[in-house]
């Protein structure tokens, strides 16, 4: 033991405290860096030696530079970010749809329907009046326009959310690639004994960002790499390998995924797998992609079904009565709204409400069905959620079939809200009369049919959701849209609050506190000064000893 020893101890102190100040300065510099976890310098005493029979330390040693990190918190953040973003993307889409149904502040489809039937009321008061007839045709056209407008609004939103899939899948792929490259950097850094704290922070942040797009599960391998899987179990990243997610080119895009690779095979190679059914998590409950798929494949088709059911009810009820009536020119059997009819083959099992193996293209809820084993007046009550329509779909009916038939021909007749049209151009064809005006008991003043048609508005009709009037059905439809949006708004604000709480916890654990770092700075500075003083003292001591020798 000697003066050199003092100098050695002081030297470790100077070194280690300088390093601690370096770490502190790194913390201060990154106070606003996203995803940065504060780092702490862990110090321990140097190995002890024995001098004069007493154990004595050999100074201070740097044990580790540790990042404050809570794995459980990261996991919760990842899961809740997925749920929150699912709600958020649904909210965005539904908010685009809400104005289509907002009749509180402006007139829309409900008003158009009522005005149409009011025009029939006016015609019933003056059945031969040309202005009244013109008004009915104009109101019918406005009604058709309104149906088309709502229908177009819904399909436009469906298209625009579908278009968003391109950006989201590209983002997922880019993040997967970055995670894979960080995986290999971390392995390299840690194998050479270096500290990869910042790289790990970046990787954690990427996983959190990835969870905004899509639900993910992840775990850390023993070699320090992270494996990331999609909700369907497909490994998105494993080691330095990753996959590309991309939308198919179909009008309603399927979500495809390539095999693993670095780089993975291109999306044109035809090696992709369709993961549309699973990528959004169960019931499409996770991530932006889940929200978008839910809106595209379930929410909007549901609304379109309701709209078509309404359009079919209006067209069917009006046409049935209109066909029975007579125009001013004696015309009869004419439709006011153009009906389309198609024949499609399908299979029924008898005493069930389902026709399976049927091409659902062009079919809409509310169309009337006829064919072998179908009771009269049967309507379509549901088309399948799977989109796009394909040949092997099935539909549900309002009544059970009475016989089993394989690949039988079924006739469907009705309208689609997107292509609804007025079939009459000649004002005289409007059937206000219940008898031929030229017949002996008839006359142009006969208003019975106009009155019957006007009264459809007050009549309770059978819908898949129960019996209600046309206005009542549409109002409860509006209310459904309101409830959907209201509940998603609640989900968003709850998710936001919860996520904020988690963020606060993460920040509390890993965030940089300037006050704390400044205090540490002074602490390490003083220690540095102290060690320097010791070195000074040791130098002076050595000088004295050397003077003694001289």
């Amino acid at each position, binding site marked *: 033991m000697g003066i050199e020893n003092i100098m050695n101890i002081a030297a470790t102190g100077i070194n280690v405290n300088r390093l601690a100040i370096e770490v502190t300065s790194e913390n201060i510099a990154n106070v606003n860096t996203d995803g940065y976890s504060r780092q702490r310098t862990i110090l321990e005493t140097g190995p002890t030696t024995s001098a004069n029979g007493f154990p004595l330390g050999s100074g201070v040693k740097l044990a580790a530079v540790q990042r404050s990190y809570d794995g459980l918190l990261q996991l919760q953040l990842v899961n809740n970010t997925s749920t929150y973003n699912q709600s958020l993307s649904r909210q965005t889409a539904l908010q685009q749809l809400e104005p289509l149904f907002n009749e509180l*502040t402006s007139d829309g489809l409900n008003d158009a329907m009522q005005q149409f039937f009011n025009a029939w*009321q006016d015609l019933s*008061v003056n059945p031969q009046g040309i202005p009244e007839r013109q008004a009915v045709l104009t109101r019918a056209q406005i009604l058709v326009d309104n149906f088309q407008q709502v229908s177009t609004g819904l399909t436009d939103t469906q298209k625009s959310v579908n278009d968003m899939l391109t950006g989201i899948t590209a983002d997922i792929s880019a993040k997967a690639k970055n995670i894979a490259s960080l995986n290999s950097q971390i392995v390299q850094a840690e194998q050479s004994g270096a500290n990869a704290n910042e790289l790990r922070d970046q990787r954690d942040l990427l996983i959190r960002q990835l969870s905004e797009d899509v639900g993910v599960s992840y775990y850390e391998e023993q070699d320090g790499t992270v494996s990331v899987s999609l909700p369907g179990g497909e490994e998105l990243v494993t080691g330095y390998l990753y996959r590309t997610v991309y939308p198919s080119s179909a009008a309603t895009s399927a979500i495809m995924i390539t095999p693993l690779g670095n780089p993975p095979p291109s999306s044109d190679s035809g090696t992709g797998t369709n993961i549309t059914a699973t990528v959004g998590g169960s019931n499409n409950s996770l991530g932006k992609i889940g929200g978008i798929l839910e809106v595209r494949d379930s929410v909007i088709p549901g609304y379109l079904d309701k709209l078509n059911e309404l359009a079919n009810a209006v067209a069917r009820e009006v046409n049935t009565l209109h066909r029975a009536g007579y125009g001013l020119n004696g*015309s009869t059997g004419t439709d006011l709204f153009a009906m389309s009819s198609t024949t499609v083959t399908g299979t029924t099992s008898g005493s069930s409400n389902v026709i399976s193996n049927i091409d659902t293209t062009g079919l809409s809820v509310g169309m009337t069905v006829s064919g072998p084993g179908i009771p009269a007046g049967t309507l379509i009550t549901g088309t399948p959620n799977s989109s796009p329509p394909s040949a092997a779909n099935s539909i549900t009916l309002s009544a059970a079939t009475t016989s089993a038939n394989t690949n039988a021909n079924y006739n469907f007749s009705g309208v689609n809200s997107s292509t609804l049209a007025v079939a009459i151009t000649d004002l005289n064809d409007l059937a206000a009369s219940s008898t031929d005006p030229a017949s002996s008991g008839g006359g142009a003043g006969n208003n019975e049919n106009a*009155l019957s048609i*006007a009264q459809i508005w007050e009549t309770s009709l059978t819908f898949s959701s129960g019996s209600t009037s046309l206005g009542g059905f549409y109002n409860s439809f509006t209310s459904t849209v309101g*409830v959907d949006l209201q509940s998603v708004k609640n989900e968003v604000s709850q998710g936001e609050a919860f996520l904020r709480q988690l963020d606060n916890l993460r920040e509390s654990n890993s965030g940089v506190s*300037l006050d704390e770092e400044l205090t540490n700075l002074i602490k390490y500075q003083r220690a540095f000064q102290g060690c320097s003083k010791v070195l000074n003292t040791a130098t002076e001591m050595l000088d004295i000893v050397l003077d003694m020798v001289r």
Partner: protein
Amino acid sequence: MRVTPMMTAENALYNIQEGRARLDRLNEQISAGLNILRPSDDPITTRQILDLQNKVKEGDQYLSNITKANLWLNFTETALQGASDVLNSIKGVASTISSGTTDTVIRANSVSQLKEMRKQLLDMANIQLGDQYIFGGYKNSTLAVAGDTNGTAAITNIDVTNLTVGMEVSGSGIPANTVINSIGPGNAITLNNSATASSSGVWLTFGPPFNAAPFAGSALTGDLNGTTSITTGLDTSTLSVGMPVSGEGIPTGTKIAAIPASGTITLDSPATITKTGANLLFGGNFRGTDDQIQVEVSRSSKIGINVSGSELFSGTGTYGAVDIFAALDGLIAAIESNNVPAIQLNAANLDKGSQQVSNARSDVAGRMTRLQSTEKMVKRDQNTAKSIISERQNVDYAKAATELTQQQIAFEAALSATAKISQLSLLDYLK
């Protein structure tokens, strides 16, 4: 728990955002004056409000129907009053001559007076609201009939019942300004122009002026020659097949069988005398329908807005059983031939006819009363719906203003606290 400046900043931002959102919502409500601006604000109340709005609009339509129904009934009432007045005058003439007179001048005066009154009564029976004959039932305006065109002036396979010579014809393949030149024989008419097309079952519109008057008829002179044919001196434009004919030398119940050409008619039974310039009365028969024109005046409640001309003038319904025109024509013929029992019989019948019109008037008055009470009911329903809507939907400004002030104070406090706290730093105290 450690609190870092980042946390403080994030929380401050979040709270300021929340405060702003609340202020924005209040501002939106106050400036629009509405509690609920979109369905998602309150879906259940939205549904209620929309249902009630439908009710209000429905009420508007019923009120508009009631106004139109009132117009019809008022107009009918006016016509009925006119008919009553004319019938009273007829009764006056009949009473002065009830025991007959051999003075031909007095009889001729009475006949010409009665003929004038017959014309007035016909006018009342044919009164029009717009272009509709209010006593015509469903047959109350223009007429469309199908026929076959063959490129000539002849149209075949056409129902000629309601057609008269001189009527305007329009339809596909018919040139402009075409009128009927002659009617019959059979189901055929001749036009003054040739049709440009040849097709069967073409819809032709007849009129204006379409002579669909429910009681068309007139007093004309014609030459009788003891056969079914009346040849000259007739203005056939007001006559139609099936019209009753009465006058000197014409058997009771005679009708027009055909109108072969302008100025010529064929009867269904021959005249009993030959006379040039014989006085003839045509028409007075009902050609409309008995239907009630129903109008909806409140949910599922309908009211008839017209009175059937045949029930009123021909006595085919509940008002009475007198054919007023037949009685009048009978009276005129009886006075012409000084047949006292017939004069008294027809005068008594006309008395009953007057009662018949009174009965119709009280029916119309009853319906007008019903309309009034329905109108009140519809308005009351509307008011109830409107007041519920405004209760749900209209902003309580006092409450909203108070909330706004509260939110404003809270927001200002949040801003001020944020400004103060973000200033604090240890750096200020380190030298």
